[in-house]
């Protein structure tokens, strides 16, 4: 099986997920990395340690990612080299261009894949319902898969050769790249906090945020939140934990009414101690927490506060 893994880089750094794609590629068959940009030799050398072949596609117009030019050059290479499987990272970039590429190739696509099994046809696994249920899907090859970060961490070392694909974009991009916008900076940097009380949609209303603040104060920590809490304007954007917010590693992460969606978990899973309170015993957060409490935050938190105060 010939497998293509489309590497990703931004701000001059190779995304480590690119290597995870190659780990899977090596498991499935002949691993080929593809790296696209203006000058990608540095990335190609790095990828060659994990791939049998590395294809470079270089052009000044490819300096900044645009989905249409990525699809344009990938179509040329894929139609020529005919891989059986095309792997793309399930990132903001990958999950943007991969479906368009799949349509143009006429291939099936499955996103956010966490396992691939070839014992009985080509079967991939992914989560649905925000992590609550798993599904195995049978897909015909050739196909495109976007791969979740952390799912294929181990793999073989290789010393592959770097090849120039000799491909250029056939037309200019319809979508003009303008620039990157830096994250907002607020008064509190939650990524430096040692104790975090994090609230999710289970906090129900802006009016209940002070309860979390009181608990944070009693513990000497700060309040952070999951995305819906920030989207609703109950906490400022710089308090968001997760892939599109901040990565935190505090000594204590107290998760209140957070379901534990992957995009949130990626931002807090390396915390030293995770305690989760959720009324749903099946909540995926209990899969990452060290300690779990099945209960209502409006019962648990006030009692905890009383006891903390009594100690002082």
């Amino acid at each position, binding site marked *: 099986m010939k497998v293509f893994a489309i590497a990703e880089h931004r701000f001059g750094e190779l995304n480590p997920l690119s290597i995870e794609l190659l780990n899977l590629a090596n498991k499935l068959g002949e691993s080929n990395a593809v790296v696209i940009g203006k000058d990608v030799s540095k990335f190609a050398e790095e990828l060659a340690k994990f791939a049998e072949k590395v294809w470079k596609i270089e052009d000044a117009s490819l300096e900044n990612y645009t989905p249409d030019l990525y699809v344009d050059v990938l179509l040329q290479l894929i139609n020529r080299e005919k891989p059986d499987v095309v792997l793309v990272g399930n990132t903001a970039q990958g999950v943007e261009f991969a479906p*368009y590429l799949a349509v143009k190739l006429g291939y099936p696509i499955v996103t956010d894949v966490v396992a691939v099994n070839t014992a009985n046809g080509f079967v991939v696994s992914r989560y649905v319902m925000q992590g609550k249920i798993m599904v195995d899907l049978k897909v015909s090859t050739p196909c495109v898969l976007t791969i979740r970060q952390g799912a294929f961490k181990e793999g073989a070392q290789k010393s592959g050769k770097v090849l120039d694909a000799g491909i250029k974009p056939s037309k200019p991009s319809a979508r003009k790249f303008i620039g990157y916008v830096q994250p907002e900076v607020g008064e509190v940097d939650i990524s430096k906090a040692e104790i975090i009380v994090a609230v999710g949609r289970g906090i129900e209303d802006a009016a209940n945020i002070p309860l979390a603040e009181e608990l944070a104060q009693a513990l000497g920590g700060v309040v952070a939140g999951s995305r819906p809490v920030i989207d609703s304007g109950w906490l400022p954007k710089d308090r968001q934990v997760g892939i599109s917010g901040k990565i935190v590693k505090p000594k204590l992460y107290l998760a209140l009414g957070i379901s534990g969606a992957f995009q949130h978990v990626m931002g807090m899973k390396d915390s030293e101690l995770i305690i989760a309170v959720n009324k*749903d015993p099946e909540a995926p957060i209990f899969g990452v927490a060290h300690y779990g409490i099945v209960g209502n935050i409006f019962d648990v938190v006030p009692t905890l506060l009383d006891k903390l105060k009594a100690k002082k």
Partner: protein
Amino acid sequence: MKIIVLAKHAPDPQSEVGIASDGKSLSLGTAVFDINDWDRYAVEEAIRIKEKIGGEVLVVGVGKNCDDTLRKCLAMGADRAIKIPFDGGIDAYQIAEVIAEAIKNEKFDMIFAGLMSQDVNNALVGVLLAGMLNLPFATAVTAIDIKDKTVRIKREIEGGYQEESELPMPCLLTIQSGINEPRYVSVMGIKKAKTKEMKEVKLEPKSKKVEVVKMYLPPVKKAEMITGDPDQVASKVIAILKERGLVG
């Protein structure tokens, strides 16, 4: 400005959901259905643009039972709706295919989809549709600024960064949550919207791209559970924190 918005009637994953007895589909008997969370933001954004510069908002829903969601969109301020009574499941190609067919005679400036649906979490239908219709596109959009026939957008990438780009129209955008504050619609408002046009278009997809083998509960590493009444739970939590020197 004419904007087509895709809106899915979807179960809330946090309500009671399970696996049906065939082991291949979801059992959603008591699940709470509503407009897909991301689509709420997409509909709101389209209506705001219409309110600012004029035009029309057309909502499209695929599903036998999607009337409530379409009516909600009409009550929010959309002008008309197309319902495609087909239950698509997890195969996003099929959904995109019937939508492409249903809107083929509509002229439009933009199509908005949600970034992903809250039940199947594919994040596919929008971009697949862009591919089928050869449209320029952008995903995870967090800001939209229209100038004549171009649209300047910000899209979300990792780590709190955003990317700024410019696209020609017509184009397709998938909307990220938090782009606006969707308006509230009352039950009265939804009733009033009953006079607005909702056209049913019967379509079946031609292709089948993926097949469900089985559904199951994910293997989870379970946390150590702290049990008891709130008082006991609180004492145990404090003991754990004490042991680690996190409280005095």
